[in-house]
């Protein structure tokens, strides 16, 4: 089984050279992005055992910092990344200090409430565009260096692809490095027997904060990537509970605490969502859903064509319940059993 990750990474590296159309590249870029997000989340959630539904905050920090500076000064993430990471660290500490004192469900709920509070603030904050958000100006690069400076490459997706790949690999490396380090061992202690660890003199607060800061940092990098890639930042798609849930969900689905868990989650869910949507679009669009009519046949027709939508979430919700019921270690947990 050892060869599988290597083969996977190699396949990822050559993928855009084989599939040269922008759309297939886009799907994998998004999968890589969410795999990185899920892995970053996993540092806090899987290793340190602190389940957070508030990670979109750090994603938003990265996205908005990048967008704001680029719109105001024409400085891309290439230059502004230290600012984003600084804000991210401050936010992590500001969130961690009060909430890490809470145990169990209180912590999880606190992360939800903080996320909602942040969303309210961001979606009402004029300087950040409030509900409208910020659009990053399109820049037609005048040469390779100029393109790099602005992180805009006209039509080519390759720089973004390999950027996402690098981010993905870096996050995996960070996760694995922490897991194997002394810090990782401490996290196991934190996760399994927090009280015992405390009584042995382990400063649990400091270690939890460290986990959060690292997790937040990589999440922020992903946010920066997103802003430069999509060129439009608004609250719902960056700093909302929905995004937090998606990130956590990908890790949960794939396998919390396992290195490749979130990756598996991302590479199953993202392409699947795209395909389902394209399939259903076509059907709804071609009128099979029937915006009119009543009766059994019409209802069946309507449901068969995807009904009101969100069929993918329906399936995922059901899957999570089943997984939690039968295999709480996520999809990867099924495979692990075979080892």
């Amino acid at each position, binding site marked *: 089984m050892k060869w599988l990750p290597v*083969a996977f990474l190699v396949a990822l590296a050559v993928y855009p050279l084989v599939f040269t*159309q922008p759309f297939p590249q*886009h799907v994998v870029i998004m999968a890589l992005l969410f795999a990185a997000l899920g892995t970053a989340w996993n540092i806090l959630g899987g290793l340190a055992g602190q389940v957070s539904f508030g990670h979109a905050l750090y994603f938003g920090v990265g996205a908005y910092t990048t967008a704001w500076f680029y719109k105001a000064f024409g400085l891309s993430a290439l230059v502004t990344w230290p600012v984003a990471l600084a804000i991210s660290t401050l936010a992590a500490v500001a969130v961690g200090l009060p909430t890490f004192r809470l145990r169990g469900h209180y912590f999880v709920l606190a992360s939800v409430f903080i996320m909602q509070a942040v969303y309210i603030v961001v979606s009402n904050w004029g300087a950040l565009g409030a509900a*409208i*958000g910020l659009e990053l100006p*399109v820049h037609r690069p005048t040469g390779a260096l100029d393109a790099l400076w602005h992180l805009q490459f006209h039509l080519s997706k390759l720089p973004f692809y390999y950027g996402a790949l690098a981010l993905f690999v870096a996050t995996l490396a960070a996760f694995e490095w922490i897991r194997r380090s002394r810090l990782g061992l401490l996290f196991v202690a934190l996760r399994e027997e927090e009280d015992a660890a405390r009584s042995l003199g382990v400063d649990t607060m400091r270690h939890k904060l460290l986990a959060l800061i690292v997790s937040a940092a990589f999440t922020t990098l992903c946010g920066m990537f997103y802003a430069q890639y999509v060129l439009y930042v608004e609250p719902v798609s960056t700093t909302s509970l929905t995004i937090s849930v998606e990130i956590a969900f990908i890790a949960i689905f794939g396998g919390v605490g396992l290195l490749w868990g979130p990756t598996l989650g991302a590479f199953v869910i993202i*392409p699947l969502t795209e395909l389902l949507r394209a399939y259903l679009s076509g059907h*709804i669009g071609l*009128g099979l859903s029937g915006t009119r009519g009543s009766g059994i046949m019409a209802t069946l027709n309507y449901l068969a064509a995807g009904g009101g939508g969100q069929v993918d979430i329906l399936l995922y919700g059901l899957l999570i319940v089943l997984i939690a019921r039968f295999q709480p270690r996520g999809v990867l947990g099924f495979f692990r059993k*075979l080892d």
Partner: protein
Amino acid sequence: MKRPFQIAALAAAAFSAAMVSGGALAQANEIRIGIMMPLSGPAARSGQETLEAAKLAYDIVNGSHDIPLPFAKTRGIPSKNGAKIRLIIEDHGGRPERGAAIAERMITQDKVHILQGAFHSAVAAPASQVAEKYGIPFVTGGSESPALTERGFKTFFSVTPTANDIARDFFTFIQDMAREKNVKLRTLGVIHVNDNWGSSLAQASERMYRQYGFEKLTTISYGAQVSDLRSEVLKLKSDTPDVLLQASFDSDAILAVRSYQALAFTPKAILAMGASFATPDFIKALGKNADYAFSHTKFDAALIQKRKAAGDVSRMFEQRTGKAIWDAPAREFTASMTIADALQRARSLAPKDIVAALRETNIDGADTISPYKGVKFNEQGQNILATGLITQIQSGQHYPVWPKELAVKEYVFPAPAWDKR
């Protein structure tokens, strides 16, 4: 250890197949238009009906119909050998990054000639950025954010009036009313759903209220998925605005007016952006409390008297969807006809020729089903002849009351208190 290998190989194969598939086969002598709408999510119903209007328009163009519209009697686009228009449809679900991805796929894989959409301005923005990069024209019939045309893109065309135009219409009308009925107005209230669409109205109002004679402005916004508006209305009431501008979704509109009545909050006039204050559901749910509300809309059934094709189109739309045509679908219909008109005049189907043809568009309002004076784009791609009309509900029916040339009834101002109806 064969199983993991097999699973992995199968997954990889399925994945690759899925990635390469999709991408409609391009046929000769057809014109492909890629349209993106929210077909799932909160705006799904509006998105679907708006899509139906576009489909109707292109079916009329492609077939032969006895309707007083250009291209109705001919089949396809005459100057392009009768080439038929094929719609390629995709759902963006309200997500900006999807809009961009869909635009790119439609351009690079489906090889569309024109992009159309996207209902949500937040999706139209990145999608049209992609279109601009590829030089493919992007036409919007219903995304009202002024920011879209302020970007100065060369390939972006907005047929609809923007939130700025709507605010200007409101203020002009309010001034007219205040003058004619000799009512002094001091404070303006704005209540809006806190999203791209609602915020544009608020921003436009903030810019303009002073120059139209108001001294004070109070703005209340609420989250998109609110279930209850009491605290908002309570706050609004305490600021005693004389006139209220509102941008709400259908259900919020009902909730809001119920709260106004429950808390005895009676502004002299309520003016709503969009169709939510004129739907049959609204009137049914509120009964006599629906009366006197004004709506700024871009279609009303009374237009049948002023636009020769409106009756036929209305009837056909109702046949297809079981619903009367309204604001958003009507605008998309007009945008589609604008596209057909440009395709006819374009020297070829190359992107820059279509863009050039769009830029030279000059359609008379009488040839559309919309209240617009016409369709003519400025250098930023905004239709400078786009106007709306203001309707008012009286005795459970809505009638155009402004501008005068499209008015069917006299307006009632100020509105009587709730308990006096």
